[in-house]
């Protein structure tokens, strides 16, 4: 393992200090319990939008704290959900009297910790709602699994709901909107290499030089199936087909296409892949009206990518276009 770290046990807190040093105009960090909060929070009368999850997916979630997106984010240890006391402390720091919406990726650990936190926060008399995102089509959603995972769609959810809270939507409206986004977003990823968790020192699984893993998660866990590595056309075709056919997205649908790098895939490959995805969607008559391309939901240094599609309407498009000022997403503000 070669990483730019001092000690595996201090990776998260040292990274938080760096985040604060780089973006002190947007956010502040609290180390124990660990959370990242918008610099001007609490905002009176505004719904507080709070998320969090294991570290190692940066810029998710701390990089999305700021105007028009998250009020606070709680980073857990690498690939480990945050604890309830972190969420409680973050909410206490940013709650502006209009309630709290927790956005949670569907993993057993995240759901249990946020559920416990919500009970504690609710007991303090704060109106708290939770929306779980589960956009990964690779996992069979049945009583025989923990359900679909939350992956790339999380960024789109945080942006759109954050914009609604910023314009003054109340808690019920923000919650309903979040559920609408979750219902209309789907993702599928692929890995070319595994990743190495700092305290482990070696990759969590192995892929041969000529193999890829389809349906990869974002925690170094294996995916749905292993297949021989293909050229980009074949890889992107699999991802687009998996996503489109799941919802399904139909001819004439307006969508946001999010082409995401897992961390180790360079932008030159990512744009190459994005171009293919646009072409394939055009062939299916799916109208791409908004795009996001880059490493936004990563899995440490994993080489790989994911494709996310969100069905758009006028309101979702307007909220996507609304001003945002965070470390990782910034436009119009």
């Amino acid at each position, binding site marked *: 393992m070669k990483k730019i770290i001092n000690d595996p046990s201090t990776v998260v807190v040292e990274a938080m200090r760096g985040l604060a040093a780089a973006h002190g105009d947007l956010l502040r960090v609290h180390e124990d319990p660990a959370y990242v909060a918008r610099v001007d929070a609490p905002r009176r009368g505004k719904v507080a939008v709070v998320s969090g999850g294991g570290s190692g997916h940066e810029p998710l979630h701390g990089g999305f704290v700021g105007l028009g997106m998250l009020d606070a984010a709680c980073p857990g240890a690498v690939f480990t*959900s945050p604890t309830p006391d972190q969420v409680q402390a973050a909410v206490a720091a940013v709650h502006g009297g209009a309630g709290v919406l927790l956005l949670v990726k569907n993993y057993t650990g995240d759901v249990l910790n946020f559920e416990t936190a919500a009970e504690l926060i609710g007991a303090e008399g704060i109106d708290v709602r939770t929306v779980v995102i589960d956009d990964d089509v690779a996992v069979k959603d049945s009583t025989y699994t923990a359900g679909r995972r939350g992956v790339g769609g999380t960024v789109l959810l945080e942006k759109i709901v954050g914009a609604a809270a910023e314009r003054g939507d109340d808690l019920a409206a923000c919650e309903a909107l979040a559920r609408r986004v979750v219902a209309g977003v789907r993702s599928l990823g692929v890995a070319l290499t595994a990743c190495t968790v700092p305290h482990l020192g070696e990759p969590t699984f192995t892929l041969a030089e000529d193999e890829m893993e389809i349906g990869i998660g974002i925690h170094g866990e*294996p995916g749905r199936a292993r297949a021989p590595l293909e050229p980009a056309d074949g890889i992107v075709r699999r991802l687009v087909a998996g996503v489109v056919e799941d919802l399904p997205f139909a001819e004439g649908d307006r969508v946001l296409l999010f082409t995401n790098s897992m961390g180790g895939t360079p932008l030159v490959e990512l744009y190459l892949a994005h171009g293919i995805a646009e072409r394939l969607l055009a062939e299916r008559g799916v109208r791409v009206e908004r795009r996001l391309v880059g490493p936004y939901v990563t899995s440490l240094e994993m080489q790989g990518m994911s494709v996310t599609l969100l069905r758009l309407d006028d309101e979702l498009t307007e909220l996507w276009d609304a001003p945002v000022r965070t470390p990782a997403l910034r436009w119009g503000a």
Partner: protein
Amino acid sequence: MSVTCTAEDLVVALRAVSAAVVDHGDELTELDRAIGDADHGENMRRGFLAVAAKVDSPGQTTPAAVLKAVGTTLISTVGGASGPLYGTAFLRAATSLADVSEVDGVAVAAALRAALGGVVARGRAEVGDKTMVDALAPAADAAATAAEGGGDVPAVLAAAAEAAERGAESTKPLVARKGRASYLGERSAGHLDPGARSTALVLRALATAAGAR
């Protein structure tokens, strides 16, 4: 031989549990690497080191108070699914012991039953889902049987530990239906469940400490 268990006995036993979890951290992580995300050993190690530090500080005068401190410490330090699940188990066990200063075999069996109830309620898993419930459920049953037969605290915990170990072994051929391993589907078969294994470890360490007094 001691028949019951005081807060002081429990603190000694929890130090032994902490040491056992630290010693077996790598083993738990290896199990989790096979079917999960390779963090169970590290998370449990962090949590039980915090538990050892917490129980060393004075203030908990009843077994229930000690268990409550353990539960809240685990919830705030472990993270992942294990934090709320283990934390809830200890909190429910604490509640079942009420304010008594010494617990007997029957109370320990009842505490294990309450712990199981908490884990099932929070994690919504059943026996056969390839989770810690596969170790904790038979442990609670065995503890109840031992207590009904007049077993004291060491006997009840020994029965629970043995059943938990067998239960953990039984997870090997199972296909996971809960937790991160469920994403693997059929590929999760052939591996021990890390949570079931750590449950057996904790109960074995408690039993050994109780038996050594």
